[in-house]
Every structure is written in structure tokens, then in C-alpha cells.
């Protein structure tokens, strides 16, 4: 597999009155062609800022630093705003959570679909239109050519998200970033949209970064998973590995938090994570999860690195082996490890 995107030591900081907020604190990851990477975490963990940082669409006061962000060998850090504008929408595209706010209500679907490709690729109006109809059909919209004249408000939420996907694919991107693409949708529509993303990924051989808080979505869609907490990737690896052997105490607690049909008994109490996320203002040494972790010891406050325990499974926890041993010793526990 060839690497489509590689990110090394990405940092996003936002200066505030109270100090500098380090929202993303040195994360590295790679996505290969045809592969889906899920960034999973709770609100405030920096997953959305990561995606915006990749697109260089951060709010103006936020600062992006990285050792390397390369898309198919092109160093995105060296591109200026004009260079990035070229890359955005053509070789990397993004889908947002709320399709209504990302579609311009004043233009027809057709206008918005065709604008990007005519701008980036300089194709003729006719070719652009043909591609728009082709993609609308691809994303499962019936009577595609008649939809081109419609406005976003005339479509339902699910259809709008399909239009957004078609729009993202117009220029044939190599990397598709989906930020909570199904959170605003019903379960039935969610399954359809995820299906669609997977099918299109296979067909166009794209790398996909999917950002979500829903572990169900992650389990079903991801090839690889990166769990984020307080601006860091605290555990990453192959999806099967992460779900069968979650090693970081945060990942474990997160999985205990969700009711699983067929596994969680009716009326059973769920696991919880005590405490709250530490303030991300200023420098932080040691493990960010230590203040909420049932396994925390003094050593957890020392500086630490992310380690690969087995191939394709990296954890940012100094006590990972001990935690794994404790877990193996216990039989199926109920509740949180706290």
C-alpha cells in the first residue's frame, strides 16, 4: 500500500487570554491509499481541529505547526495559501457534519457541484455537468439531472449529505476527510451513508480519514483506529486489535461506557469515567489521562512516549503491560476499572 498522507508531530495551539491552549499536541499518523483511518474521541479531544489543520482551514488565530504533512509526497507545509487552495477540493476534500450549513442556500446543487471542478480542472461546462450527473447517480440520487436545478433546502438531510459527498468527489480526490458525516442523521440513513462512503472509497481508491465519536461507526468502517484524548493519540492500531484488546485505560473505559445490544443486560449500569479532561492550557507533562485513571501511579506523571506493544498497535501508557496483565487476570468484569 502506498502512503497517501503522512503527518508527523502535528501541533495546533490557540492563544487565549488565560494562556496558550494546546489543542493538538504532537500527533503523527499515516493513511494509505484505499485505507480508512478513524480518529475517535470525545468533544474537545482535538479531532476536528486535526482535520481542519490538514486542510489548513483553522480559525485565523489558531497556529499550526508540524514536522511534516505530506500528501502523496507533496509537502503541504511548503505550499502557500494559493497552493493549498488548489489542493483543497482537488486532491483532498472534506465532508462536514451538518450538510445544510456547508451547502450555500443561494445556489443550485448543480452550480455548487460544477463550480469546483471548473475552477480546479478547467473543464468545460458540459463536461462538468456530465461529471455532476454521473456522481449524483453514484451517490444514489435518483433523477440526477433534474436535481441539478434544485436548491439545498428542497432536499432532505440524507440527500444533502449525499450531495456533499458527490461534491467532495467531483475532482477525484486522493484523500477524503469526513468530519462526523453521519452524526446529524437517523440510524437508517447513517448506515446508508457509511455504506456509500465505503463503496466510493473502493471504487475511486481513496484514502479516507473519518472523524467520529461513535465507536459503533469506528468498528464497522475503520481499517485503522487512532483514539484521541486531550489532543494526543493515546492508542492506535488495526481496528480488530483495538476492539479485541483495547489497552489504554481510556480506550477501555470508553468501550465500557456504551450499551452494547446483546451484551449489556437490560437495566444494567454502564461503566463511567470519573473526573474531567484536564485543562489543555499550558504545557503538560506525563499522561493526560492520569487524573482520571484507575491504574495511575506516580510514574504516570513522568514524561512518556508512545510505544508499539505489538506490530500495528501503539499505546501511550507507561503501564500498558501491567494494565494488560491485570485485565487478563480478571475475568469478564462489569463496570469501570476505577
Amino acid at each position, binding site marked *: 500500500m502506498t502512503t497517501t498522507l503522512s503527518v508527523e508531530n502535528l501541533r495546533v495551539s490557540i492563544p487565549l487570554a488565560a494562556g496558550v491552549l494546546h489543542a493538538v499536541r504532537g500527533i503523527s499518523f499515516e493513511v494509505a491509499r484505499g485505507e480508512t483511518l478513524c480518529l475517535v474521541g470525545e468533544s474537545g479531544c482535538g479531532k476536528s481541529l486535526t482535520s481542519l489543520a490538514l486542510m489548513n482551514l483553522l480559525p485565523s488565530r489558531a497556529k499550526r505547526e508540524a514536522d511534516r504533512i505530506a500528501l502523496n509526497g507533496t509537502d503541504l507545509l511548503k505550499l502557500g495559501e494559493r497552493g493549498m487552495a488548489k489542493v483543497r477540493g482537488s486532491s483532498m476534500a472534506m465532508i462536514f457534519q451538518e450538510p445544510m450549513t456547508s451547502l450555500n442556500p443561494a445556489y443550485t446543487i448543480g452550480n455548487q457541484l460544477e463550480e469546483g471542478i471548473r475552477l480546479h480542472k478547467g473543464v468545460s461546462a458540459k463536461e462538468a455537468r456530465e461529471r455532476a450527473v454521473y456522481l449524483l447517480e453514484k451517490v444514489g440520487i435518483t433523477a440526477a439531472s433534474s436535481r441539478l436545478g434544485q436548491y439545498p433546502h428542497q432536499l432532505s438531510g*440524507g440527500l444533502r449529505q449525499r450531495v456533499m459527498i458527490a461534491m467532495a468527489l467531483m475532482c477525484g480526490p486522493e484523500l477524503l476527510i469526513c468530519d462526523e458525516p453521519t452524526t446529524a442523521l437517523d440510524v437508517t440513513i447513517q*448506515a*446508508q451513508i*457509511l455504506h456509500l462512503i465505503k463503496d466510493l472509497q473502493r471504487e475511486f481508491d481513496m484514502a479516507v480519514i473519518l472523524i467520529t465519536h461513535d465507536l459503533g461507526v469506528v468498528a464497522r468502517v475503520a481499517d485503522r483506529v487512532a483514539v484521541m484524548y486531550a489532543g494526543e493519540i493515546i492508542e492506535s492500531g488495526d481496528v480488530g486489535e483495538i*476492539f479485541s484488546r483495547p489497552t489504554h485505560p481510556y480506550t477501555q473505559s470508553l468501550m465500557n*461506557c456504551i450499551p452494547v*445490544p446483546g451484551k*449489556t443486560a*437490560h437495566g444494567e449500569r454502564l461503566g*463511567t469515567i470519573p473526573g474531567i479532561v484536564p485543562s489543555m492550557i499550558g504545557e503538560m507533562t506525563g499522561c493526560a489521562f492520569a487524573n482520571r485513571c484507575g491504574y495511575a501511579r506516580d510514574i504516570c506523571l513522568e514524561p512518556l512516549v508512545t510505544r508499539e506493544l505489538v506490530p500495528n498497535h501503539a499505546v501511550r501508557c507507561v503501564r500498558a503491560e501491567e494494565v494488560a496483565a491485570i485485565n487478563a487476570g480478571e475475568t469478564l468484569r462489569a463496570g469501570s476499572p476505577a
Partner: protein
Amino acid sequence: MTTTPILEARDLFCTFQVRQGMFQPKRPLHAVNGVSLSIEKGGVLGLVGESGCGKSTVARMLLGLQEPTSGTLAIDGQPLEEIGRKDLAKRVQPIFQDPYSSLNPRKTIGSIIGLPLYVHQIGHASERRRKVEDIMDLCGLPKRAYDMYPSQLSGGQRQRVAIARALVMRPEIVICDEPTSALDVSVQAQILNLLLDLRRELGLTYVLISHNLAVVELIASKVSVMYLGRIVEEAEGQDFFRDPRHPYSQALLASVLTPEAGLGVPDAQLGSAFPNPIDPPPGCTFHPRCAHAGDACRTIRPAPIRDGRGLVECHLFDESVTV
């Protein structure tokens, strides 16, 4: 069972007159189209369905915020219109989805939670304060929060405030409209635990409106599935999740993404088009999206079939109709 259900709705209809364009004539939209519900004391009724199916309108009618166009609602056998708005407020209270829009940003937590007590003039100021602090304690809010404003709290804490406000009058029935879908997973777990504990502790009856079927399965003792303003299936919780009968229920359950790696995204075989509620399809309203639809489904509206397991509204279960 011979006990009177604590909450009973019979043949509820709610019709809105809507205009589709500025100069178009108004047309009726049957948001709720003949819904009957009942729930025993201490039970949890899960009301599930896609957005736009009318479940929130049902919730508003149960709270007395929306007058039904026709049909009857009764609490403990007493019709809602006899109870009166103020007494109803003592017995039925809501918990909303978005803890950001459900709390007035200009009021302190203490006055938000104490509002029902104040409105009903229960006790003196000091007694009211004690009651509010009791319920805050029960809902896991520190006393210090009494004089704070919503903007100082996190999403989970706000939802605790909303729950405390609903429970301060010790109602019998709590209508929870998507109580956790705006929250993070770890916070969702805390709130669900709290709801479970409070039900046990205070003997509450919940009507739980949610599209998260995992949450419904965890809490609900009885499930009603709504589609386009009608209840298409009703069953005991366990039965429903083991063996859903209506094709729509099956599709809903099939769409649930359990956190099990390697299973891939399920294909529920539902068409993408949610029908326009102003122009519902003829016959069974679900037929355009149904994998089992036959000729009868396109023309004849199915009648509700009640049997030992509950209710289902589908020709597949009607022996007198061949699909």
C-alpha cells in the same frame, strides 16, 4: 393485567395546517395519525422512529404543550383536560435533548431547578431551597452550583440540571426526549446510569424517545415504533429486540452499528427516500421502502393487529390479506 395504565393515549391525532409556498393554499399535515399508547406504573416506554415520524409531537401532547386534534389522553384513568395545566405539571415533566437550549442562560441553576416549586408556590423560600438542594444532591450536582449560571457548567452537568428540574416536583411520569443524544459517550453513560438509578429510587415511569436503539434496549421495558405518524409495532422490550416483526422495525435494528469490528456496515435495504408527510404514500405508508411490499401494500392500508405479543401494523401478519 387489570391495572389501569398510569399513562394512556387513545387514537391521538394531531394535524397541522402548513403552507408549502408563500401563495400556496394551506394543506393538512398529519403529524400524528391515530396513535395509541399505554404504559404501566414504573415501566419505561421506548418510542423510536426516524426524525419527522411524529414522536416529538406525541411527547408535546403528553406534556400538555400541544393540544391533540382529536383523541384522548389520560393519567391514572383521569382525562388530561380534567387535570388542568398546573396539576398536570406536578405529574408529568420533560427532559429535553439539548442541555444548552433547555436552560435559560440568564438564570442561576438554583432558580432554574426551583422554578416549578416557585410557580406552584410550594413552601417558603428556605424550604424551596432545601428541596432544590436535595434534588441537586440526588442528581449528582454539588451545592456550590446553586448560584452558578448554565454557562459555567459542562454539557453533562447541564443535563443533570435539566433532570433535577424535571424531578424537583417528584412527578410520576418523565418524558425524556433524546436525553443523551447531544452528549459525549462517557457523559451519556453517566446520565443513563442516573436515569436508571432515579427510576429505581423514586419509582418513576419514563417515556423515552430516542433513535439510539442501544439506549432503548438498555432502559425500555416496552417499545413502540413510529413511522409517519403511526405506531407500526408495539411489543415488550425483550421480545422486540429478540424478534422484531414489522419490516421497518427489522430495518431499524439492522441499521444499528454495534461496536464489533469486522462486521462491516449493514445494509438494511431501505430506500433513501423518507416520504413527504404531506403527501403520504397510499396503502401502507412504508411500502416504498419495504423489501417485502406486495400489491396489497400499495393499495390497502393495513389495520393494526393485536395479539399476545403486542401490536403490529403490517399485511404480512394479516391472514385475511395476501401480499
